[in-house]
């Protein structure tokens, strides 16, 4: 009599974060189709499906670290540390880009762009302050 093999537990193929991101993207794509923006909708849906495949592939056992971090399928503390540093870099670039955009909007006297840039810059600056407070207090 052979011992029955343990049943494999079902594992959702992508991370929760990616599930939320791709579900949003898919809904956005469907909404575009519903509102008769067929070409844009098809592009968004195809890109979403490709993203899901890319993320699911990054979750396999022999995937590379860069592949996992790019796909936001973080497997361990080193992946998380790399992703945190990369997001911090994005934050710095976003702040600088928002400042430049705001400056250009003022110089070329474009009130709508200036308003949007001001909101973006303020949001980023406030987020930075809150993040500083949170991580300093958290130790």
């Amino acid at each position, binding site marked *: 009599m052979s011992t029955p093999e343990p049943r494999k537990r079902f594992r959702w193929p992508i991370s929760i974060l990616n599930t939320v991101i791709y579900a949003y993207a898919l809904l956005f794509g469907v909404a575009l189709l519903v509102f008769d923006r067929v070409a844009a909708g098809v592009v968004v849906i195809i890109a979403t499906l490709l993203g899901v495949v890319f993320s699911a592939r990054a979750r396999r056992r022999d995937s*590379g*670290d860069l592949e*996992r971090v790019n796909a936001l399928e973080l*497997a*361990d*503390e*080193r*992946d998380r*540390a790399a992703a945190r540093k990369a997001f911090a870099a994005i934050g710095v670039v976003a702040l600088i880009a928002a400042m430049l955009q705001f400056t250009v909007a003022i110089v070329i006297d474009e009130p709508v762009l200036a308003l949007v840039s001001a909101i973006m810059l303020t949001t980023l600056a406030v987020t930075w302050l809150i993040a500083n407070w949170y991580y300093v207090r958290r130790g």
Partner: protein
Amino acid sequence: MSSGDSVQSRVRELRAGRGLSQQALGEAVGVSRQTINAIETGRYDPSLTLAVHLARYFGSTVEEIFDVDA
């Protein structure tokens, strides 16, 4: 364990001594093969939690496995 000082580890030596692959050790302590490789080659300083897990796995102490050049 990240403080800016260089950390040397005996992970490769201990792992090889037990005839383990990087993949097997990674699975045993809950990290990827690449993370074990990065620790062994000095490209990544593990967290205190991971250092303790590695030390427990090898039946040793953190100080015996990791050395910090101050």
